[in-house]
C-alpha cells in the first residue's frame, strides 16, 4: 500500500482533497480494499459530525422538494459491469470465453458510442462516422483484446488490436470536473507518455469512445486530470493505469 496516498484517507472522508488529489486517491481506492474499508468507516464517522449540527429545515423546503421530485426522472439501477458478465460466463464451461468477454465489451462500447452519437448527431456527423468506422475496425480485428478495470464509480475498458496498432478506450462512472479541468488519456511507453485524447463525462459519467491508431510501443494507457485544453505531458501521476495486452 502506498503510504503517502493512504494518509489521504482522512482528508478524503472530510472532502478536504483538491480535485487532482481526489482523482488520484479514488484511482488508488479502486485497487486497495483495505483503504476502501477504512474510508467507509471514516465516512460513517464524518456523517455523524454532520448529523450533530442538524437544524430544522424550513417548512417550505418540504413542499418545494416534494413537488420537485415529481418532475425528476430517477436513475435506473446499475446493471452488472462488463467484468462481472465476463466472470459470470467464465464460471460456466465455455468453449470461447475470450470471445464472449470481447463481445460483451464490444457491446458496451457500441452502446456508449450510439448514445453519444445520438446526442451529437447534429454536430459534424461525418467526423462521427469516421470515428464509428475506426471503432468498428478495432473491435472487429481478429486479434482484438479487451482489458477492463474499475475506476471511480464505474469502469474503464480498452480494446486493443496490435495488428492495427490501434486501441479504443471507453469509460463510465467518471466524476464531473469543473470547467477548468479535463480528463486526459495517455499512451505510455518506456520512452514516456503521449497524449491520447481528452475525455468529457456526460451527466451519467460516461465518456465517448476514444480511438487511437498510433499505438507504437505503448504498453499502458493512463488517465489524469489536467487543466482545460489538456497538457502535452501529464502533470500528475495517473489515477488509472491499464496494461495493454501484448
Amino acid at each position, binding site marked *: 500500500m502506498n503510504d503517502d496516498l493512504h494518509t489521504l484517507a482522512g482528508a478524503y472522508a472530510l472532502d478536504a482533497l483538491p480535485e487532482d488529489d481526489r482523482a488520484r486517491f479514488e484511482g488508488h481506492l479502486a485497487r486497495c480494499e483495505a483503504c476502501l474499508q477504512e474510508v467507509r468507516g471514516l465516512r460513517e464517522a464524518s456523517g455523524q459530525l454532520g448529523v450533530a449540527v442538524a437544524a430544522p429545515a424550513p417548512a417550505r*423546503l418540504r413542499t418545494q422538494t416534494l413537488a420537485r421530485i415529481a418532475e425528476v426522472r430517477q436513475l435506473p*439501477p446499475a446493471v452488472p459491469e462488463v467484468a462481472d458478465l465476463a466472470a459470470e460466463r467464465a464460471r460456466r464451461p465455455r468453449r470461447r470465453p475470450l470471445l464472449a468477454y470481447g463481445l460483451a465489451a464490444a457491446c458496451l462500447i457500441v452502446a456508449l458510442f450510439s448514445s453519444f452519437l445520438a446526442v451529437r448527431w447534429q454536430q459534424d456527423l461525418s467526423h462521427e462516422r469516421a470515428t464509428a468506422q475506426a471503432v468498428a475496425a478495432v473491435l472487429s480485428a481478429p486479434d482484438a483484446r479487451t482489458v477492463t478495470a474499475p475506476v471511480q464509480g464505474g469502469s474503464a475498458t480498452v480494446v486493443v488490436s496490435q495488428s492495427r496498432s490501434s486501441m479504443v478506450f471507453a469509460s463510465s462512472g467518471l466524476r464531473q470536473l469543473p470547467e477548468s479541468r479535463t480528463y486526459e488519456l495517455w499512451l505510455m511507453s518506456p520512452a514516456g507518455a503521449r497524449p491520447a485524447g481528452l475525455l468529457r463525462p456526460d451527466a451519467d459519467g460516461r465518456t465517448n469512445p476514444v480511438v487511437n491508431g498510433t499505438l507504437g510501443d505503448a504498453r499502458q494507457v493512463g488517465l489524469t486530470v489536467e487543466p482545460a485544453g489538456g497538457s502535452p505531458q501529464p502533470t500528475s501521476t495517473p489515477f488509472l493505469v491499464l496494461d495493454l495486452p501484448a
Partner: protein
Amino acid sequence: MTDEGRPVRPFRKPAAAAGVRNDAPALDALLARVARGDEAAFEQTYDQVADAVFGLVRRVVRDPAQSEEVTQEVLVEVWRTASRYEPARGSAMAWIMTMAHRRAVDRVRSEQAASDRQARAANREQVVLYDEVAEDVEARLDRERVRRCLDTLTDLQRQSVALAYYEGYTYREVAELLTVPLGTVKTRMRDGMIRMRDCLGVEA
C-alpha cells in the same frame, strides 16, 4: 468487497440520525422503496433526513437562501440516485450525509475566493455545535456523543477535522490557517477521524 471482508457496520444505534424515532422505518428499507419510484417512501425519507442535511449544509454554506437551494438539490439527488445506494457499502445516513457535504463544499469552493473564507474563519477555530434548536432527546444524545468524542481529540486533530468538515476547507488551506506542514495536517485528519470512528462506535 465487503462480502469477503468484515461487514461495514452502520451507526451503533439504528436511530442515530437526528429526529429518527425508533418506530420509524429503517432508512435503507425506505431507500429501496424510493428507488422503485415510491413517492410516499420519499416523503418519509425526507422527514428523517431533512434536518440533518439542512443543518450540515447551513453550517458549511452559511447563506440561508443558498443553504435551502443546496439542501433541495441534495434531497432531489437522493430521489434520483436511490437505485445506486448499496447497503453493503455503508449506512444510508452516511451515504446521504456524504452527498450533502460534497454538494455544500462544491458550492463554497466554486463561489467564494479562498481569501474571503480565510478572513471569515480567522476566529472560528473552536467547534461550535448548534444548541438553539428545540430537539428531541435522541438528537440531543447524538449531539452529546459527538461532542464528547471531539473532546477526546488533540487540539490539532480537532481543529483540522472541524476546519475541513464544518468550514469546507481543503487540507492545504487548513495547513495554511494552522501554520503547520501539509504532511502533519494529512496525518492529523486521518488519525483524528480514526479516533472519532472508534469513539463513536462505528466500524468498517
